[in-house]
């Protein structure tokens, strides 16, 4: 049996008197695509914010590859190999597509600011190599024709994709996707599913995603955790979740009524 790449141990988060997440324990195995679902306000994004260090859990511990990462700063956690995207797209609006991706490489630059100012070869070569690496990456995800466009001028779907690429450029082993299919039509959703599966296989990464589109979740997630108002309602594979009565009552039933 594989050791989990990510494990949370009864983590809770409180804001003032409000409990956003209560005693959540999840395990993600290497190479899996795991879904985190639940109605709005269920605390899903808060879970991401705790894993990536934006918040420190009020209680509980988080382990990544067997080491505790609870309370580490976000940039440390990123450098350990956890990358993420955001529910409300957060691209660097003053920059081009390529520049957005290259930001991810900044910490891996093996030269000092002085070398950069003086234009010494160690910096220029290093930077050039990073640039080529990023262009290569953008080619692999079919964004090469827009590399010099301002990132915010891209259509919505491509902005989402760019965010994923930017996260991939940090060389993660675990990728957290926060509602990647939000605002997409069924065709785009299918395309996105294929894309996520492809990057998982090609980049040998693990994916934990929050998603509302049930087709997407049921289509690609191998295991699913269901949250409801901070509590863990259920977990299992898509089939188990779809047949879980508590889930149907609390969540899926509503979706079916909507549909």
């Amino acid at each position, binding site marked *: 049996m594989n050791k989990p790449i990510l494990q949370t141990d009864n983590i809770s988060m409180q*804001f*003032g008197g409000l409990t956003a997440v209560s005693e959540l324990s999840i395990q993600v195995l290497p190479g899996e695509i795991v879904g985190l679902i639940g109605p709005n306000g269920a605390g899903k994004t808060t879970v991401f*914010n705790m894993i990536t260090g*934006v*918040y420190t859990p009020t209680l509980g511990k988080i382990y990544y590859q067997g080491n505790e990462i609870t309370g580490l700063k976000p940039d440390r956690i990123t450098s350990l190999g956890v990358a993420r995207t955001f529910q409300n797209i957060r691209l660097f609006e003053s920059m081009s597509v390529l520049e957005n991706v290259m930001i991810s490489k900044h910490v891996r630059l093996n030269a000092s600011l002085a070398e950069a100012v003086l234009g010494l070869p160690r910096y220029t070569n290093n930077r050039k190599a990073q640039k080529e690496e990023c262009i290569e990456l953008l080619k692999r995800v079919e964004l090469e024709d827009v590399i010099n466009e301002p990132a915010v001028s891209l259509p919505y779907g491509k902005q989402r994709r760019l965010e994923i690429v930017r996260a991939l450029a940090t060389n993660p082993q675990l990728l957290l996707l926060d509602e990647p299919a939000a605002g997409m039509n069924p065709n785009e959703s299918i395309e996105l599913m294929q894309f996520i599966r492809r990057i998982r296989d090609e980049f040998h990464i693990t994916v934990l995603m929050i998603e509302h589109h049930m087709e997407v979740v049921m289509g690609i997630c191998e295991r699913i955790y269901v949250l409801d108002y901070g509590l863990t309602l259920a977990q299992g594979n898509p089939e188990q979740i779809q047949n879980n009565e508590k889930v149907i009552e609390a969540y899926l039933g509503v979706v079916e009524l909507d549909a």
Partner: protein
Amino acid sequence: MSMDILLQNIANSITLGSLYALIAIGYTMVYGIIRLINFAHADLLMVAAYIAFYGILIFTLPWWVAFLIAIALTALLGISIEKVAYKPLRSSPRITVLISAIGVSFLLENLGIVAIGARPKPFPRPEELVWNIHLGDISFLSLTIIIPIVTFILLAAIIFLVKKTKIGIAMRAVSKDVETAGLMAVDANRVISTTFAVGSSLAAIGGILWSMQYPQVDPLMGVFPGLKCFIAAVLGGIGSIPGAMLGGFVLGFLEIMLVAFFPHISGYRDAFAFVILILILLFRPGGILGENVVEKV
């Protein structure tokens, strides 16, 4: 330190604390509602003091008429500043609005210099308000009593306004959440204008009392009291009216006592407030009465 000097210092710190508290409320109310350090608030003190000054000296108005006119005009000025310089920037980044506030502040100060010159002028103290009181061996100015009394009456009135009146409840609603308040049929513009009117009137009263206590007016007179009152507001917990009052008194007390007990470092008196500001921002950003909650992203 002898007993009467200690008493004297305590009296001084209550007077100074009262003035700080009055002015700090304006900062805290505006900050609570539009999240802006209203740099121009400091200069409203000066404007009010000058209107009162000219009212008494040039137009030979009775002091209370001059004071009332000064308060009214200053309130009007406060409202207009918001309408002209802050309202159009309501959806802009906070830095932009702050730059605008700094611009207004500089404009007022320099208009003051242009209109009346940079040289300080003595403020005419109305005899009816300022006289010497003798109590045994110690003698003190009537203002030592009048300023705290006026302050306490005004503080009580403000608390009543905010807690019990319709407009006060609307203020609190807007300060919690502008959009939701809008949905509840609260007219945010009216609430903001009222806030500026109330805050500016308090600044005006503070400015007039200030220039009676330290009887001199000049175009830059508001700058340091202004900064310190903002610090008082942060100290008490920005956005909280009782906090601003508490912060004002605490700061006034600490300042006077620092100089009283450590006269050799009295040159650092003005730096002291800033040191407090920085310490409070770092260790208890919510202030004494504020809540220190995790910032939601």
